[in-house]
């Protein structure tokens, strides 16, 4: 398991390459990268992500451990950023490695659903100096139900 909570920019292609080099005999590698939507000074100046240092990494690891229990996956990579992010920058990424694609896809979706609603991050959007906290939606919560 590789988990990183960081403010620094990351290059997802380099991260995938590094991750894949640590893996043994796998047949499937699924990756997801979340990117800050919007165009600068049009729909979004920047995004700011707050998190709960101390809890964030532990909570992500618990979510990953749950995924490892549920699916036959070989390894997992999670990177999640905090701090100020510009439109177009990567926010986070998930990679799951497995023998077969179904496990890798499902585990990646599970991780995404839980990271969205159970990892202690809070997004704020800033446009023309106006700040607004992104609100969690009922769809976010409902998407957890499919895994119960």
């Amino acid at each position, binding site marked *: 398991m590789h988990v990183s909570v960081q403010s620094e920019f990351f290059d997802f292609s380099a991260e995938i390459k590094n991750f894949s080099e640590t893996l043994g005999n796998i047949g499937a590698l699924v990756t997801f990268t*979340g990117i800050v939507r919007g165009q600068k000074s049009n729909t979004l100046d920047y995004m700011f992500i*707050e998190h*709960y240092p*101390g*809890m964030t990494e*532990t*909570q992500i690891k618990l979510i990953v451990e749950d995924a490892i229990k549920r699916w036959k996956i070989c390894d997992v990579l999670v990177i*999640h950023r905090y701090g100020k992010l510009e439109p177009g920058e990567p*926010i*986070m990424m998930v990679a799951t490695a497995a023998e077969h694609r179904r496990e890798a896809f499902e585990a990646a979706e599970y991780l*995404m659903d839980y*990271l*969205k*609603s*159970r*990892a*202690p*991050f*809070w*997004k*704020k959007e800033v446009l023309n100096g106006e700040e607004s*906290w*992104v*609100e*969690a939606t009922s769809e*976010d*919560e409902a998407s957890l139900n499919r895994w119960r």
Partner: protein
Amino acid sequence: MIDLIYFSWIRERIGKSSEAIETKAATVVELIEELKVKDIRYSEVFSDLGSFRVAINQELADFNASIIGAKEIAFFPPMTGG
């Protein structure tokens, strides 16, 4: 003493990111009731239990959970990671 930690709009509306308090409350709900009496900012922020979450010692918890012996209690809105 228990450390209370606030995040996101809860931190902004209360006007501080953390504080250490003495409490006689045995559960999260009792603690919230104590805070609400303390100042109008708390009663506004904590008026709707559906609008925020709580973690005890950095683990997600229910509002009815015991806080006896807890070191750190955090209040925050539903998370928006990913």
